[in-house]
């Protein structure tokens, strides 16, 4: 494991796969994960256009590498927390695609049976401990899960994903401070896609690197990684998770990435300069990774097979979700309380 965790943005040079710390199996897993995320998000986008998804949704198209990189690095019993832009983090931990698509469409087969929606995807059996729609709220919660693991002595790790805008809210600072003081096994991962929502993050942040430049305030090392390079993300993730598991405390990682679509369904993203969008689209992580794996000598047939399998699975999931009935109405007044009910009186 590389001891130097401070790295700047760099294009990844061709690596020698045989001597590589990551290995083919992991890389294929990284590829599969990204591709699956891409395909599901693409389907979600299509469903918008057909008005089968109501309300709003925040897609992670373009940010697959961060999801895959950490998803593969985590242990099955680790905890992850993400924001309302969390489909990729949910899928990357192995949650059901049918469940994700069904939830978006308010179907009974949804992960939450239609009770939570796009912004609250959860799959506790996979360690996905909620997607959170209030900026910053889940950082202290993730710290709490880490505290629980530390208290119970299980060496589980808590990984918390959030955007660049989160670094300016109070809960971010409270969580980082507490995690550092208590040396909690939590990895804070900032997906810096350069835009707070519609506003360039640079316009509203006192420092250049919204997450990394705050690390020092909490006694942590600044870590910046190319968020579109799954290998770089994976390595960084591994190192931070191992540090946490070893009891050495939290990390704060800033992943530079970019979203392909607007902030949400309602947003065409017209506030981003055309040249910027085009430059980032050239660095689309999914095709970029396929090319790299080819360069490493992995057969096209292998990669195509993976893609075919994923496509089939995604298609099947979509069909299942589309034919699933809407959420049963008797779900309305259940599961407010542990006893399954919702009663406030006798």
């Amino acid at each position, binding site marked *: 494991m590389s001891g130097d965790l401070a790295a700047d943005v760099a294009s990844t040079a061709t690596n020698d796969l045989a001597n590589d710390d990551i290995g083919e199996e992991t890389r294929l897993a990284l590829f599969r994960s990204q591709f699956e995320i891409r395909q599901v998000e693409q389907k979600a986008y299509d469903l918008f256009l057909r008005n089968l998804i109501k309300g709003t949704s925040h897609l992670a198209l373009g940010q697959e590498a961060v999801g895959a990189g950490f998803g593969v690095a985590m242990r099955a019993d680790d905890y992850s927390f993400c924001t309302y832009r969390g489909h990729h983090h949910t899928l990357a931990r192995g949650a059901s695609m049918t469940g994700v698509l069904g939830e978006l469409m308010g179907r009974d087969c949804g992960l939450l049976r239609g009770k939570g929606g796009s912004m609250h995807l959860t799959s506790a059996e996979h360690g996905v401990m909620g997607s959170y729609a209030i900026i910053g709220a889940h950082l*202290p919660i993730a710290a709490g899960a880490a505290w629980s693991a530390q208290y119970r002595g299980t060496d589980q790790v808590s990984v918390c994903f959030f955007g660049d805008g989160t670094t300016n809210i109070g809960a971010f600072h409270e969580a980082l401070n507490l995690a550092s003081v208590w040396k909690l096994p939590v990895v804070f991962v900032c997906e810096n896609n350069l835009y707070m929502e519609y506003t360039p993050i640079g316009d509203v942040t006192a420092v250049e690197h919204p997450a990394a430049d705050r690390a020092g305030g909490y006694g942590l090392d600044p870590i910046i990684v190319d968020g579109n390079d799954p290998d770089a993300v994976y390595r960084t993730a591994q190192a931070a998770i191992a540090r946490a598991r070893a009891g050495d405390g939290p990390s704060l990682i800033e992943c530079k990435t970019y979203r392909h679509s607007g902030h949400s369904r309602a947003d065409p993203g017209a506030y981003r300069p055309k040249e910027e969008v085009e430059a980032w689209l050239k660095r689309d992580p999914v095709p970029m990774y396929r090319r790299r794996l080819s360069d490493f000598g992995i057969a096209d047939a292998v990669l195509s097979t993976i893609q075919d399998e994923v496509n089939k699975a995604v298609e099947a999931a979509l069909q299942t979700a589309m034919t699933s009935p809407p959420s049963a109405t008797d779900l309305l007044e259940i599961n407010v309380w542990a006893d399954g009910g919702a009663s406030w009186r006798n």
Partner: protein
Amino acid sequence: MAELTYREAVAAGIAQEMARDDRVVFLGEDVAAAGGVFKATVGLLDQFGPLRVRDTPISEQAILGAAMGAAMTGLRPIAEIMFSDFLAVCWDMVANQIAKSRYMTNGQLECPLVIRTANGGGSRFGAQHSQSVENWAMAVPGIKVVAPSNAADVKGLLAAAVRDPDPVLFFEHKLLYPTKGEVPDGEHVDELGTARVLRRGDDVTILALAAMVPRALSAAERLKDEDGVSATVVDVRSLVPLDTQTILAEVSRTGRAVTVEENPRLCGWGAEIASLIADELFYDLDGPVVRITTPHIPLPSADHLEDLAMPSIDRIVATIRARVD
């Protein structure tokens, strides 16, 4: 039976539960080494050690967030928010996160935690440290809300709250901390969602909560002596779940209901109960439901002004005298 102060009963309740269940942990500001700013948690650090009893920074959102994360992953945390007014600082955690996680995830996530806080006025701490905000909590679906009036109930209801698999907001009252009461020896566990009838009468039913309960009892005594009016006094104890059966039965017996609420007038807890009575007991009412509350103002600091604002025994007696014939 032992005589404990209300504040001693807090520590006793926490200790009882922490001794029973290793998953119970306790965090808050100045709660461990200092034993709490109200000295309600003295001795716990010594008894259970620094891994289970933790002092936090001044970070209300982190305190409740950490409690939630721990509760979601197998622990049974008790978190202290020093003054209930500070719930406003971390209200996102209470109302948006803790209250809603089980419902939004259709049961995948749970929050078996207790938030204890010091509520209420009368201590001359000024508007931002004297509020009674249990009615705020009552208004958010997904949290249980309890406010004990005496030492025995503190211990018993705190134990019940810790054992409850749902999130519970436990409102202690600053004025009541020094009050003494008989507390049963040994393990004492009460039941959430239950009210207590403390006194039975025929002419009017007084519903009260927390620090207003002793005032209601004193008022009932005076009304008996001075006016021959006999009053039932119900200690509501639990706002969510609400013991509507007891409340409605006691109001139906007398045909008259009066609430004594420390909340400012609008949307105090009694408003909901008055609405319930109007809906379900309309044809049993021998007169209007009367609410005795603090006026709709922030609480002033000067002692005589604060006393004027909060329902006093005199005001309770005078109001019942004037409105119940």
